[in-house]
């Protein structure tokens, strides 16, 4: 049986994108091969934190994401570890470069793509990535991280710098609770809450909202387990199977399209492996829109209340 993770709130909040910038500065101090590339968004992706301490290792590529990715590919062949940074929604814009320039030759390039999901908020649907995980999952050799808080973001950046090959790190703009640093292993999920009636598989900043949903479900007499995956690829298949078998009812919750993200990754593991009920909770084949993050989570069924309602209904 896998071990329960002790989740200790620090009482502080920060966004994973801010944590990404700080993590780059910290990891960059330990490894001089790390260089950071940005496409005129250093103030938003927070790579300015790295730039402030290592200006000679920061390269602005202008508003040209495609060129940024292939420049990073070229730089990696010189023994450097480039971190490309931009908004997750532009993953589509430089997808051919990520595919052919980096993944096909398995070059050592990292992608720290921020402002993912609808909680980006006011900028609206044109800027809210709902498909980036789907795009990245299908690329052979790509490692995918979706950190849930600031400390885990540091762990993901650190791990990315130690992996020889492409790594995608998805971060968010919305501040989320910071928990005390917990043990981190690439490809391993974390059991946040044990439970016997059903299991919730989630990733990223949805940890905050699923945690609250677990409490709401408890009030309704449903004992839900909660597992958080900082690594979407390679996915902790063993753990996905373990809690599906233990509870018989699986719900996946992600701030991403229900097509191609964590839900589909779990479904692929579970298909044909037993008799479970299975439901994906996420953005249902539609684009985002402008609004306050909390209102958007409500609208797209990803607030704690909406998640708990869906799960309670699914358990009937």
């Amino acid at each position, binding site marked *: 049986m896998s071990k329960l993770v002790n989740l200790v709130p620090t009482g502080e909040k920060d966004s994973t994108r801010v944590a990404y910038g700080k993590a780059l500065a910290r990891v960059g101090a330990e490894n001089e091969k790390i260089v950071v590339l940005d496409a005129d968004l250093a103030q938003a992706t927070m790579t300015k934190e790295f730039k402030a301490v290592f200006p000679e290792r920061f390269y602005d590529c202008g508003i040209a994401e*495609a060129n940024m990715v292939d420049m990073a590919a*070229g*730089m990696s*062949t*010189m*023994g450097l570890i480039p971190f490309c940074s931009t908004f997750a929604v532009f993953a589509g814009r430089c997808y*051919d*470069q990520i595919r052919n320039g980096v993944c*096909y030759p398995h070059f050592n390039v990292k992608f720290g793509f921020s402002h993912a999901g609808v909680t980006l908020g006011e900028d609206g649907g044109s800027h809210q990535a709902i498909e980036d995980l789907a795009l990245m999952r299908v690329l052979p050799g790509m490692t995918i991280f979706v950190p849930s808080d600031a400390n885990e973001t540091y762990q993901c950046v650190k791990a990315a710098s130690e992996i020889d090959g492409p790594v995608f790190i998805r971060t968010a703009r919305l501040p989320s609770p910071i928990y005390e640093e917990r043990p981190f292993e690439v490809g391993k999920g974390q059991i946040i809450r044990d439970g016997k009636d059903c299991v919730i598989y989630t990733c990223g900043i949805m940890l905050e909202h699923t945690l609250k949903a677990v409490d709401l479900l408890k009030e309704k007499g449903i004992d839900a387990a909660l597992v958080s995956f900082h690594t979407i690829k390679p996915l902790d298949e063993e753990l996905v199977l373990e809690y599906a078998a233990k509870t018989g009812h699986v719900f996946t919750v992600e701030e991403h399209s229900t097509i191609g993200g964590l839900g589909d990754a779990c479904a692929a593991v579970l298909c044909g492996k037993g008799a479970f009920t299975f439901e994906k909770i996420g953005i249902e084949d539609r684009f985002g829109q402008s609004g306050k993050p909390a209102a958007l989570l409500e609208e797209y069924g990803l607030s704690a209340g909406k998640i708990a309602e869906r799960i309670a209904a699914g358990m009937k």
Partner: protein
Amino acid sequence: MELKELQDVCRRVRRDIVIMTNKAGAGHPGGSLSCTEALVALYFDVMRGVDPKDDKNPARDRFVLSKGHAAPALYGTLCERGFFGPEEFDGFRQLHGILQGHPDVKKCPGIDASTGSLGQGISIAVGMALGAKHTGNPCHVYTVIGDGESDEGMVWEASMAAAHYKLDNLTVIFDYNGMQIDGTNDQVMSLGDIRGKFAAFGYDIIEVKDGNDMQQVLDALHAPACPGKPRMIFLHTLKGKGVSFMEGQVGWHGKAPNNEQTAQALKELEA
């Protein structure tokens, strides 16, 4: 190597191109034949640290074939240079072959970047040159791009960055054969004052009247670098050069010669 010897290598590479594409029944002979002098000049005369026994030597000059479909010219050149034997030509475009349809850094020795998706190679070369400057590596980076390839916006993004970062350790070779898949450049997408455009993007430009004349190509490639500026060499070339029935013919962009045509081509390319 003497000029005559380099010209002989070109002739042999052209034979390799014909043989390879004939065996595979596919490939891109036209644009391979047009850039043969450039590749042979680079691998046999210009690039430093080219060593088939140590193809990962960090200080070696780098080459990126941005117009990756001209792979037969690169494979012929690498074979003549000793990176692998001619028996590999049998596996060109075949399952498990090291000579993939487009250059693959993971499969073929001597290749520095996987290319084929047009526009990307020049950008990767810019990154290599920037990375070399960053790490203090004295190597020079060369890339060959196509005229049709320059329809791609990436070519211009990369060029802007090359000038911005003052990459005088980068040489972009423009294979100006005037043709692409669907017709001439002017029929498909006019390049306009292409030299003026690249000059405006910040390149130090050298124009070579006959890019299939080895001496002219060598002179351009050996010209001293212009401090603080990336170099672009315009090679006015002939698509299908060396095979009479392919010369200047759009139709030979991506078509393999049959056995009869191959016999004729090889006869024309005899010493």
